């Protein structure tokens, strides 16, 4: 079973200084997101039932959620010109 992203790590390496690590615990947001999504999910399901699944809204919502789950492992590193600073974003 795939789990949603648990942490977002931002690493900033200023020139000639130690790397700063910022750990954002996305895991703490899970209960809140779950709460916020429950009502819309049932409303969407109801809308889908009323329209006889013509717009496939429930499937769309599930697919978007699946896409969010697969974000784990994404890593983006940017080193802009003119500054020796390097910024890395990791989703784990």
């Amino acid at each position, binding site marked *: 079973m795939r789990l949603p992203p648990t942490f977002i790590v931002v690493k900033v390496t200023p020139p000639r200084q130690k790397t700063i690590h910022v750990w954002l615990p996305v895991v703490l947001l899970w209960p809140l997101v779950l709460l916020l999504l429950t009502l819309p999910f049932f409303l969407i399901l109801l809308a889908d039932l009323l329209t006889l699944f013509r*717009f*496939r809204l429930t*499937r*769309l919502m599930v*697919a*978007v959620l*699946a*896409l969010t*789950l*697969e*974000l*784990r*492992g*994404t*890593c*983006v*590193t*940017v*080193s*802009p*010109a*003119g500054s020796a600073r390097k910024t890395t974003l990791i989703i784990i």
Partner: protein
Amino acid sequence: MDERTRILQMVANGKVTVEEAEKLLDAVTGKEPGDRPPKTGTILPDYLFVKVISEKNDNVDIKVPLSLIRAGMRLTSLIPNDAMNEINRSLNEQGISFDLTNLRQEDVETLIRSLSEMEVNVTSKNGDTIRVYCSA
């Protein structure tokens, strides 16, 4: 100035790290990097890498899980028929005979498997280098 000298010059100027230069040299010489999986067709790649190394030192390094691309491809099945027909017509106008309505899960898997053998290396006139490849 040939590619090899240019890369070595970039290392000397501190524009790229030794590790990045090694990968670039591998790309230029067509050699496989040591950390890449063998191209046996049995090992599926896990990540898609996009590396941009510019002459002005604007460097971007992106690692995207291929499962994300797989999940994104699944979304195509949810595109409404009218929109899908419009996309197909536009693709045909551009000379791409690719029908998205016939895209099945097996096709997506084949496409991702084929990505393990794909590598795109672009070196522009001003020395910017873009490398796209898949690896485990």
